[in-house]
């Protein structure tokens, strides 16, 4: 009741206030809105919700989180882009928008945004059904070359981790396999354990426990060094040294704001997120689960994004999976 009266009062006084609203108090003077472009319970959601309380402490204001899902994240990104560039709206996203233009999903992508902080990245792990004969990545690849079109990989759709990693491995020597798209890493892992798929690539965070329990067999980590959370699993470069040029590669999670927000707001946000991400509780959570904490912003983050996009877009282009040629989008070839 109170609120209504105050709102109407505000309306009546509106003409007087119109001109003076531009100069607001120091940022942030009210709650922020954080839009998560993936669903509740997913890696982007969990990472975002885990870091936000620490950021709120550093920022001195609450961040109201909401999930806006769909279109591999394009819905949430488009929504944030439609709101004012005042720094009060944040996008909690993952790597997907870097491929929107190549896959013809949306014309808006991270070029319209500025990275506030890249929080963490996951390392892809190549896993197989536990009853399969392969024990190394090389054995799997050799088998696929011997039996083209017989071995089933669980994927998470075009541009997804499994699709890109298998394309990267195939760039060292072509093989043909069946790629069955599932609704995400969890459903893919389920199918793998049920024997409805033979192998797949999945983020370290999602798979570590399943490997530890011996329910799936880890063949390699898609990294140049082994992971502490998966002892004894060799890096993919052990069998295929030429993959090193593509690494580090994998899903990552971060926070973005619109490109043209005021500098003051950007600086405050970057500082708050860097403090929040450095919180030991958060870093322990991430590394314990096999993720790599990034905590990068500014030019360093821009460079990471540009390299990721270039490597991935061109791998897809070479495999014939890109729908728009990265050259026409001015995405440079990886050096």
């Amino acid at each position: 009741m109170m609120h209504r009266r105050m709102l109407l009062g505000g309306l009546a006084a509106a003409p007087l206030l119109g001109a003076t609203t531009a100069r607001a108090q120091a940022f942030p003077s009210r709650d922020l809105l954080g839009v998560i472009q993936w669903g509740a319970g997913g890696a982007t959601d969990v990472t975002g919700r885990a870091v936000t309380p620490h950021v709120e402490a550093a920022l001195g204001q609450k961040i109201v989180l909401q999930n806006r899902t769909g279109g591999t994240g394009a819905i949430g990104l488009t929504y944030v882009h439609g709101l004012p560039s005042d720094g009060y709206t944040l996008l909690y996203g993952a790597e997907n928008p870097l491929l929107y233009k190549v896959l013809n999903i949306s014309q808006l992508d991270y070029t319209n945004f500025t990275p506030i902080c890249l929080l963490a990245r996951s390392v892809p792990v190549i896993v197989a059904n536990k009853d399969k004969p392969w024990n190394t990545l090389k054995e799997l690849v050799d088998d696929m070359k011997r039996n083209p079109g017989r071995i089933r990989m669980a994927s998470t759709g075009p541009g997804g981790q499994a699709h890109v990693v298998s394309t990267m491995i195939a760039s060292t020597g072509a093989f043909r396999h069946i790629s069955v798209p599932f609704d995400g890493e969890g459903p893919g892992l389920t199918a793998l354990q049920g024997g409805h798929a033979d192998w797949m690539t999945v983020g370290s965070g999602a798979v570590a426990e399943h490997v530890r329990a011996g329910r799936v067999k880890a063949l390699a980590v898609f990294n140049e060094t082994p992971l502490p959370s998966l002892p004894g699993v060799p890096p993919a470069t052990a069998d295929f040294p030429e993959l090193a040029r593509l690494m580090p590669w994998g899903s990552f999670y971060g926070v973005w704001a619109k490109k043209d927000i005021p500098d003051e707001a950007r600086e405050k946000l970057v500082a708050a997120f860097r403090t929040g991400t450095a919180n030991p509780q958060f870093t322990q959570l991430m590394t314990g689960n096999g993720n790599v904490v990034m905590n990068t912003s500014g030019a360093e983050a821009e460079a990471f994004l540009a390299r990721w996009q270039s490597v991935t877009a061109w791998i897809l282009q070479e495999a014939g999976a890109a729908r728009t040629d990265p050259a026409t989008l001015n995405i440079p070839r990886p050096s």
Partner: protein
Amino acid sequence: MGFFLLSWLDPSLLMLTAAGTLAGIYIGAIPGLSVTMAASILISFTFAWEVNAALALIAGVFTGGVYGGSRSAILLNIPGAPAAIASALDGYPLARRGEAGVAIGLSTVMSVLGGFIGVIALAVAAPVISEFALLFAPRDYLLLAVMGLLLVGTLSGESLAKGLFAGALGIALGMVGLDPMTAEGRFTLGTVQLMAGIPYVAAMIGFFGVSEALVQLHNLRVKPVKQDVSRIIPPWRLIRKYLPLSLRSSLIGVVIGALPGTGGDIAALMAYDQAKRTVKNPSRPFGEGAYEGLIAPESANNAAVGGAYVPMLTLGIPGDAVTAVILGALFIHGLKPGPMLMIETPHLFWFTVGNLALANIFLLVFGLTGIRAFAKLVECPPSVLIPLILVLSVVGTYSIQNSVVDVYFMLGFGIFGYLLKMYGFQVGPVILGMILGPMIDVSWRRAVISVGDDLGFLVEEAVASPLTMVLMAFMAFLLLSQVKWRALGRRLRS
């Protein structure tokens, strides 16, 4: 094992479970507010708490929320949650007859019964059930979805052609958005707004709630039916009579709930179908307020709660959207959800079992109180009730994914659903198609892609799998039982 009683004995956990259950009932009853949403808010909210407290609260909300959907389904014909769609089919006609009190009482008791079956299944057979769930290949999910779709036959009303049209329309509506397998837009007309698809909860609110509100505008001057609230708690005689049906439905609920990718909504619909096929002499014809048509889905959807916990606790695989959020919560609290959870932290398992059992007891208490006030709600004059239903539909739809576009669709569906009803269609098959369409689409394509588009190989694999053959035999039985043999014989003779 001692942890089973932890939340029963610790006063603060006891309170939290109770509060969660009570809140869950209302979250479930308000369309658009979902348990998934509540659970993910609770994660931020309980961030600093001890993990047991967070889990107790969420288990209560989950149990209450799945049940609460039936409240609005019975009273307003708006299923408050997807799991309550089947409950509207006979629950709302009961309220129109002045038996809202009886309907809510019956649905409460049967929900609790189903809930306990789910908890017992979780406690004694979780590892077995989860291994069984892993056996389901894409082709088996396809068969399950097609079986569910056979319900169109029983929901068609006056003509099968109209039922088929509505069902197929629902399937087409379920296809709107980015194709999950190729990321190509379907029916999106090139707009980003449509890429997220049309949430079937929006369609559900439009086709059920708004269209019924518009139909009721015809009876603006008719006095609402007096609700009989003299007997709320169903007599023991009635409970005993329906016990076998409730048990059958609960078993369906546990299994469907345990399958990753299917939840209480599909469980309830399949249980309704099962009831319609197996009950020879229902209290009234199905669709006109049969007690059996309410008991079956209500038992099944609460049994599915226990089922959904099965793969989550044993394998770290979510059984549905809510358990996916709970997995996230466990992770944020520093636990490592996965296959080792039950081996390394068995106390967490028994704590959850105890919690769910406790939540069901609170459900019985809270479910059976305040029914009179709820039933009286329907006695409000329609000139007041209908505008409020419309606003609730708008807010609820908007809240699903904070989208005004969904609200436009919801109203469009409401008007279209009104026309469908006026021209003798049933709207049930549309929602059925929307729920099962995406499952049929991806399961079929996944099954076909798995065999390299070689249909011969698909048949070979199906014949080699005992599970697939059992499902096929079951489906053949359902199809044959649907044919009206006697009528056919009569026609052949003449």
